[in-house]
């Protein structure tokens, strides 16, 4: 009896190449990925600062970064209003309309809106003699009401006058006040209109 011959197993027939199943991706997965994508976009929009090179962590946007910049010593019009109402308003009126036979108006006044170098000199040393404001002659004497104020305070109150009650002139900075104070020096005499008109 011949020994049993082991029959080799038939080689598996390779039927075809494997193919990607044609089943669609589960809709749940699609939704999950879309939600994740959306969250990513929202996160990027809120924290990414749109690739601005100035913005680093911990700041999330250029707006947030700007909120942490040191204040630039601007003109404080609220301080100007408070000072105006406690010093100037008694005669010139709180609404800038002036008082008859006491003080000329500021609203629309060519002196208040005009050359800052002339305007700054008036509170610094006062004004004597007649002055023409809005086609009316005023013959008065104003003492140096602003001489005791600091440069910042005087610039605040003058800027308030120049930007209130419909006035739209450029504000006066404390540097401008400082320059005029330096130019005036130790003068104690009141100004006259002629002298002011000579100032450029």
């Amino acid at each position, binding site marked *: 009896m011949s020994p049993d011959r082991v029959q080799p197993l038939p080689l598996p027939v390779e039927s075809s190449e494997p193919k990607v199943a044609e089943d669609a991706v589960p809709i749940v997965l699609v939704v999950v990925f879309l939600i994740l994508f959306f969250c990513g976009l929202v996160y990027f929009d809120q924290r990414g600062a749109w690739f601005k090179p100035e913005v680093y962590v*911990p700041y999330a946007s250029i707006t947030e970064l700007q*909120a*942490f*910049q040191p204040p630039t010593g601007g003109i404080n019009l609220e301080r100007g209003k408070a000072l105006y109402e406690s010093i100037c308003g008694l005669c010139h009126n709180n609404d800038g309309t002036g008082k008859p036979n006491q003080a000329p108006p500021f609203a629309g006044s060519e002196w208040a809106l005009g050359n800052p170098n002339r305007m700054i000199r008036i509170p610094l040393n006062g004004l004597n003699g007649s002055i023409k404001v809005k086609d009316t002659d005023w013959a008065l004497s104003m003492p140096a009401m602003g001489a005791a104020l*600091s440069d910042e305070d005087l610039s605040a109150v003058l800027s308030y006058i120049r930007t209130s009650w419909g006035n739209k002139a450029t504000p006066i900075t404390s540097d401008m006040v*400082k320059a005029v104070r330096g130019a005036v020096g130790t003068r104690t005499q009141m100004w006259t209109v002629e002298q002011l008109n000579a100032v450029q």
Partner: protein
Amino acid sequence: MNYGPLLFLAAFAAMSASWFGFVIGPQAQLGRQQPAAMLGSPVTYPANRSGEARQGLQIYRANGCVECHSQQVRQTGTKLIVQLVELGTNQPALAATLKRELPSLPEAELTRAMEKLPAALLTTSARPDADVLMKAIAAAGGKCSLQIVPVGPDLERGWGKRRTVAGDFLYDSPVLPGYQRMGPDLANVGARNPDLNWQLCHLFWPRSEVAGSGMPACEFLFEKLPLGAVRSPDALVFPAGTDPVPGFQVIPTPAARSLAAYLLSLRADAPLFEAPFSAPAVAATSTNAPAVAPGSTNAPAPAAGTPPANPPKTS
């Protein structure tokens, strides 16, 4: 199964995406930075390092200092502190304003704040809150200052005043920000310890300056000579009792000098637009008011922890 081109394209897309993200993107974002003006000053930052310090950067790189030292200070947030620095002329009005604006502050605290200037009134991270208070104080005639204080663990360790930004490395080639911290961060080492002799002693024998330091000694950057009759003026001066080589004098080589010059040039402490901060307030005196007499309550208080520059004479 001939997906070769598809696989190639997929691999190519994956590689180029990371190349764009890691190389081209940052280059487009930060690659063209220019020196910019510091906050509140026309001086531009950064200044180029001296030639010696630039050579020192190469020594720093060659000796692998960057393997253990980072040069990146991190920041987790920013505080705003409103400080009252001047009371002005109408103190009752100011007190009323403060009481109105800061209802949560106890009255005793308020009185103490007004007596001892400068006094921190409000600590916040919301600028509008600070602005409202500052406007109210200014309208009442007082003066206040806004202090911008970066916060974070690195800053608490005293490693800097603000976070590190790309501009700090503007002139460095290569940029060596480091990636791990076996030793302390060095972004501001030149500001922390501007003593050249200290830096050189520390490089020669770190344990002489910092007990228990794990830093390897860079003795090979120095020359050890027998102490002759005349001591070299260049020889290191070790703190008393810590001389690691008694009987010898240690002379730094040019390499050690340039490395120390590089370390001293590391000071990323300029306030910048992208990393703002401001120094603690000193009580401001208005430009045309007479200077405040020392000893009055309006005198600037010395910053906490630092001795006054000119201690008032008591005699």
